[in-house]
């Protein structure tokens, strides 16, 4: 109906972030700062509605191509939206809407809130930009906006941990960005184009079976760059620090948003840009190493947010494992896990934030016995923990089970066994966390701790309900991800839709 919905989904949050400083100057003068916060929430919800508006068109099998400045690809930039984009856009904008509602109370006591909300909107706009774009260099530009706003948000609390984490994140992240830029410039020097569909078409002429050495180098540069951004194991050092130092609301958005976007970009490069399914073995090995190391590191953590960050690393391993199996069931399971991971990771980080908001610490040694004070948070955290460890009837079970079956069918029994063991480890460290936070002896000073406020409970409850619904009705989840699966395996359809039969 609205023709311009794809671009508006990016421009509206962008314009919101440009307007937020002006609005906050006005609202500060009249002492009505709530209006600014509500304005931000309204902008995020409009973005979500625009994504929902595009949903039926894309799910019926069409690919929306929006040509910026009416230039024909490959000369201009275009936005190309297929089933894969829309799934990621839905996850990102949905989680961002919940996070912005959650921030209303959670961030209330901080200073510099206008900067916080501006950066939050910029993060949302850039994630939408990365997700929806069909141009390779444009993807890099928006990825950098995402990274710079993430660096700034990590340093938001300005205590020692966040400054150190931000410096570390920034140095490693800039190195990754440089590698991506080098990969893009090699691609341009090889095929002379920047449009993803056009590059894909030209690479398919060069031939990817076997991959020529120069394409292997390009692929290695791009993969290393994006692996740094999603914290695959050899490059994961920045992530726990960053997630621990960032405010929990932002950490929830990072875990559910930027990680999802990073995985999406990797899938887009492997399946659409290069069209190489032969990378399965690499993905399986990387995925299982990430999975095991993340879970082992999570076992020894004494800080709740750090523990959740390591478990996030380990869950990304599952996604890559599922996609790496290469069978239809495996890819669907991986994508389903991508959706589920966003849901319960956001839930768990929000619970950690609720605890931090009321108690002021996330250190497992200091916490204890909070289930009497915060029964709702305790229940929601338990739901999230059981979902992430793959216990039926929650959504984690549905996607992990799909991945196990796919692994056995693909004849990769060893990796399937590894995945099951890691799942047990996940349950172990999360039960340890639940025990340390909610059960056991309650320190004297926590006796007057109250339940988290309602605006924080609501987004958490919404996510917990989603966990249960997708767990009880796994076919619903598979229905949501099957357009993404179809898009991922339909390289020719993508090229044809974007280039219009050239």
């Amino acid at each position: 109906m609205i023709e311009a919905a794809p671009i508006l989904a990016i421009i509206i949050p962008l314009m919101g972030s440009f307007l937020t400083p002006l609005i906050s100057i006005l609202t500060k003068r009249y002492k009505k700062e709530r209006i600014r916060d509500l304005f931000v929430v309204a902008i995020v919800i409009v973005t979500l509605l625009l994504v929902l508006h595009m949903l039926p068109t894309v799910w019926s099998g069409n690919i929306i191509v929006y040509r910026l400045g009416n230039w024909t690809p490959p000369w201009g930039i275009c936005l190309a939206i297929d089933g894969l984009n829309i799934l990621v856009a839905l996850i990102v904008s949905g989680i961002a809407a919940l996070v912005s509602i959650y921030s209303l109370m959670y961030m209330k006591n901080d200073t510099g809130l206008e900067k916080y909300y501006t950066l939050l909107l910029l993060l949302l706009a850039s994630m939408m930009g990365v997700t929806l774009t069909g141009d390779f260099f444009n993807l890099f530009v928006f990825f950098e906006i995402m990274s710079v706003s993430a660096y700034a948000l990590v340093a938001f609390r300005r205590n020692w941990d966040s400054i150190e984490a931000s410096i570390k994140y920034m140095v490693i992240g800039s190195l990754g960005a440089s590698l991506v830029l080098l990969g893009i410039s090699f691609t341009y020097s090889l095929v002379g184009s920047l449009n993803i569909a056009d590059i894909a078409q030209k690479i398919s002429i060069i031939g990817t079976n076997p991959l020529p050495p120069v394409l292997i180098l390009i692929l290695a540069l791009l993969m290393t760059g994006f692996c740094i951004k999603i914290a695959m194991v050899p490059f994961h050092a920045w992530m726990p620090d960053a997630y621990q130092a960032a405010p929990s609301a932002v950490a929830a958005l990072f875990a559910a948003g930027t990680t999802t976007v990073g995985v999406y970009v990797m899938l887009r490069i492997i399946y659409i840009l290069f069209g190489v399914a032969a990378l399965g073995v690499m993905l399986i090995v990387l995925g299982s190493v990430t999975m095991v190391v993340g879970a082992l590191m999570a076992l020894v953590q004494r800080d709740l947010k750090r523990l959740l960050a390591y478990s996030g690393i380990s869950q990304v391993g599952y996604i890559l494992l599922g996609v790496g199996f290469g069978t239809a069931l495996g890819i669907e399971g991986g994508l389903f896990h991508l959706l589920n991971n966003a849901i319960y990771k956001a839930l768990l980080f929000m619970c950690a934030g609720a605890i931090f908001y009321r108690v002021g610490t996330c250190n497992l040694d200091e916490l204890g016995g909070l289930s009497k004070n915060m029964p709702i948070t305790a229940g929601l955290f338990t739901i999230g923990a059981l979902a992430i460890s793959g216990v039926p009837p929650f959504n984690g079970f549905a996607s992990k089970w799909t991945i196990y079956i796919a692994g056995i069918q693909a004849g990769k029994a060893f990796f399937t066994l590894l995945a099951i063991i890691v799942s047990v480890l996940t349950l172990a460290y999360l039960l340890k966390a639940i025990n340390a936070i909610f059960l056991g002896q309650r320190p004297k000073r926590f006796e007057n701790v109250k339940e988290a406020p309602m605006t924080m409970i609501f987004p958490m409850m919404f996510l917990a309900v989603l966990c249960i619904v997708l767990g009880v009705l796994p076919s619903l989840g598979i229905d949501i991800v099957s357009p993404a699966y179809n898009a991922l395996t339909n390289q020719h359809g993508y090229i044809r839709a974007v280039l219009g039969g050239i």
Partner: protein
Amino acid sequence: MAGMTLIVKTASRLLSPFVLLFGIYIVLHGHLTPGGGFPGGVIIVAAIVMLLLGYGAEAAKAKFSPLQASVSENIGSLILVATGLLGLFLGFNFMKNAIPLGTTGNLYSAGIIIPLNIGVGIKVAAGLAVILYAMLTAFEEEEK
């Protein structure tokens, strides 16, 4: 930060208007000669830096206050988005060059490139000024 010696003060007072003018020239001729909004904005902010170094932070802030800087940065960004949305309102796609193009080589030519360059010029000058003032506060506290 206090000012510098008389030589620096005189030189910066004499030079900074010309630097400012040159920056504006670069912004306006972005579609004809090398340059454009970004380099032009940086040259404009160089004029402010000259004042700041010569006469101290207070004098520079009196000319171009931090609040003015951050407001004009937002206005510059909004000019960009509004110019992009113009194409949408005229019935084309976002960022369409929809207003009449002049003759190639004239000052008025190339359609929306002129307002975009002006917007980005304002934005870059104001944005770098904000960064400069923000970094200065770190040292001002130290001096107190």
